[in-house]
């Protein structure tokens, strides 16, 4: 009478829709929580999911319920010493809430946060919500230099390696059936006639029978002569090239590693670079990262060295810009690659170099860039580089610069740099 059904293989995420609705509804609170989370922890593990909390009072669903006060009778188990008529001091806190129902406690208690875990995608979506890569639109419209081959049914012509065997043989069977059909029905007719003749007493070697037998043989030879497969049967898998918007990006990380950049500032810069990397990752399939560090001379290095090796000495920013320009010229054709750059520095530069930087930027680098973001990590007065870059900003709208004072500024500055621009 009972029916056992194995449902374990059924979909697991029946509540996924509800979960999404929930996240959508509390997006504002969640965004705040996510921003806090970014500020409060090491940026290196930002790539995983994140536990976030939103105040539970924001998400309660109200019902009419009784509040405190009035006369209330409660029955409890486990009496040890009470006698009828005993007076008891009212307990502090909410022990009076437990009158056997869950709802009562809901309204009064709990300033606690409602904490739960977001998946990586959800986390990044919230983190980068409202942000936009500058000039992405332009890129998608004209950057159609890449093609993707996609299936487009079958064709009667093509290269031998694209022959679809099953499809071709199906065609062959159909052709053989169709071409053989008249002969076969003629054979059936003749056989019936022979049978009729034999039944009516005609001998086996009678001319009528023999003639018919010969015709049957002729027809059978003809059927057998039908080619098993013909060029006419061949079908080829057809592929067409579908133009794809360019989805390759290169990110140039440029950092000052002179003596004045201590590990704290480097960590700040690192957080900024990682945010940028994660953000680009959401928009492009493939991202390459080039690390360029400089003091008086610039070097292209790997990530480890970029962030952790120690250097001393003065600062010549133009060396890095020159190197960046060379790298781009050599390896990243700006018609195929989307080029982004982020530069972090404490603002120190050799005085007469700032003018050089400005010229390199305006004339050489900026025309190749999708976007160039400069962050200055300094609690002090701006120096010549800042003012030189301000001129760059005036000349190129896709150049942006901001100042970071401490860890708590990074995310706001990042948001400021990539804020969705009103059209």
């Amino acid at each position, binding site marked *: 009478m*009972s*029916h*056992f*059904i*194995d*449902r*374990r293989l*059924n979909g*697991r*995420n*029946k*509540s996924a*829709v*509800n*979960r999404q*609705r*929930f*996240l*959508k*509804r509390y997006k504002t609170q969640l965004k705040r929580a996510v921003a806090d989370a970014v500020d409060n922890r090491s940026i290196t593990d930002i790539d995983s999911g994140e536990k976030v909390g939103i105040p539970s009072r924001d*998400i309660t*669903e*109200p*019902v*009419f*319920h*009784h*509040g*405190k*006060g*009035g*006369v*209330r*009778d*409660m*029955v*409890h*188990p*486990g*009496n*040890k010493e*009470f*006698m*009828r*008529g*005993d*007076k*008891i*001091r*009212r307990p502090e806190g909410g022990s009076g809430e*437990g*009158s*056997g*129902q869950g709802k009562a406690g809901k*309204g*009064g208690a709990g300033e606690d946060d*409602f*904490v*739960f*875990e977001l998946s990586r995608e959800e986390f990044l979506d919230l983190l980068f919500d409202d942000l936009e890569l500058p000039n992405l639109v332009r890129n998608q419209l004209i950057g159609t230099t890449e093609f993707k081959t996609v299936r487009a049914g079958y064709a009667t012509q093509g290269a031998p390696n694209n022959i679809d065997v099953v499809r071709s043989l199906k065609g062959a069977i159909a052709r053989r059936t169709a071409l053989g059909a008249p002969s076969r029905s003629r054979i059936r007719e003749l056989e019936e006639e022979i049978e009729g003749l034999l039944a009516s007493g005609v001998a086996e070697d009678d001319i009528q029978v023999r003639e018919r037998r010969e015709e049957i043989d002729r027809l059978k030879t003809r059927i057998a002569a039908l080619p098993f497969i013909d060029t006419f049967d061949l079908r080829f898998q057809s592929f067409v090239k579908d133009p794809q918007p360019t989805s390759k990006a290169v990110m140039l990380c440029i950092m000052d590693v002179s003596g004045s950049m201590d590990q704290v500032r480097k960590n700040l810069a690192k957080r900024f670079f990682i945010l940028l990397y994660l953000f680009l990752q959401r928009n492009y399939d493939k991202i390459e990262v080039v690390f360029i560090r400089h003091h008086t001379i610039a070097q292209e290095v790997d990530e480890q060295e970029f962030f952790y090796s120690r250097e001393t000495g003065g600062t010549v920013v133009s060396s890095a810009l020159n190197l960046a320009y060379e790298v781009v010229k050599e390896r990243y054709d700006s018609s195929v690659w989307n080029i982004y750059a982020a530069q972090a520095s404490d603002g120190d530069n050799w005085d007469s170099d700032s003018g050089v930087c400005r010229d390199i930027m305006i004339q050489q680098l900026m025309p190749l860039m999708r976007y160039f973001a400069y962050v200055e990590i300094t609690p002090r007065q701006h120096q010549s580089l800042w003012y030189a870059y301000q001129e760059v900003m005036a000349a190129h709208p896709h150049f942006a610069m901001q100042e970071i004072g401490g860890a708590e500024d990074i995310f706001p500055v990042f948001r400021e740099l990539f804020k969705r621009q009103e059209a």
Partner: protein
Amino acid sequence: MTKKLITDSSEWSFPLLERFDREIANLAHNVYGLDTYANQVEVISSEQMIDAYSSVGLPIYYHHWSFGKQFVSTEQTYRRGQMGLAYEIVINSDPCIAYLMEENSLPMQALVIAHACYGHNSFFKGNYLFRTWTSADAIIDYLVFARKYIAQCEERYGHEEVELLLDSCHALMNHGVDRYKRPAPLTMAEEQRRQREREDYLQYQINDLWRTLPLHGGAAEEQAERRWPEEPQENLLYFIEKNAPLLEPWQREVVRIVRKIGQYFYPQRQTQVMNEGWATYWHYTLLNHLYDDGHVTDGFMMEFLQSHTGVVFQPPFDVPYYSGINPYALGFAMMRDIRRICEEPTDEDRYWFPDIAGGDWKKVLDFAMRNFKDESFIAQFLSPTLMREFRLFSICDDDREEHMQVTAIHEEQGYRALRQSLAEQYNLGSREPNIQVFSVDRRGDRSMTLRHFTHNRRPLGDSVEEMLRHIRRLWGFAVRLETVDDQGRVQLIGEA
């Protein structure tokens, strides 16, 4: 009965589950005379169990953010290991759908089969509240309809619109049930009256002037003075569905869906102690019978008993994790106690329960299961023996007094008061605030006045403001909430 061990393994398999189900069904139907719907047992994973949890156990439900909230919080506490999942969810439908979790061992699966598929199942089929208020054969179809309908509305009118409406309806879900009357089947006269009503309605749509023309003389005054609705209405959602001036037809239908589902859950809220007690009593009895017949091993029984005792444990009031009376414990103890009163009555039992002491326990239990809800069940069957066993005591908390007072303990003078007080604790009518539609200003600003009738001077909680906003969203015009105290004094406590 064959003296035959079913298995000594603790791993379950489908053939073993079927074997157990056959044995248990045989005992339940042929030895103990339980009457059940057919069972549909579904084996699911723990993730699916969390899914089921978040939609209040229903196999199909419409989408709403609050289920998502439920989902993430359940998932979170489960992952952290703060909470075990319930072993089972069972749905009052025909066939009765029960879920088994794949992680459970064989003794647990057997326990769940006995508990859900024969205990709860027979309760759903027998208890008068479920018989009166729910139609087990139609609920799944209705849920499918509801889900489709709400999905359509979302497509047509937008998620936000539907979500806001559902929020407001959910807030009033507990006030969307008919407590006392079940709609009688339509008679011919009634059917004709409704038909006329629909015609009148169409007529109104055409001749809008009719409604706005003032009536003449005395008739108009009389009309204006009469309060409407004539009787206060306790079913707020029903009232809104039928009378809210501005709701579109689809919105009325959504209100109706929430109301219907609320009504479906209403008997469950009223029979926690009985329902769980009944199911627990039967898994205990059935599995012990299997053991007595030699079908299961000692190890099986040890595992079963361990989880059974966990379920029926009642912590005393003064431990930190005490959270009220455990309905499993109270229900199970009362069911066993009734059997004891029938089989081995003491003099005290004969005095308190003259009509059941020494009777046929199966008949008495069956009678109790069919004809009571928590409140009346306790008022009728809680025995002095049990009150002593639980060491129950009753406390009166009056905010005018400086101290709380112990009003009754488990002694001769206290039994009746204690029993009365405990029964009252399970009375939904006093657990939930009594709020009714008192009047609607039909000729003026169309505002609606609700009245909260206080009981024992207990005020409303702090959600009043928010609730009024929800009601206003549904009603479309101003909503006032007044409170009426024990002396009949009326006071305005909120307006939106």
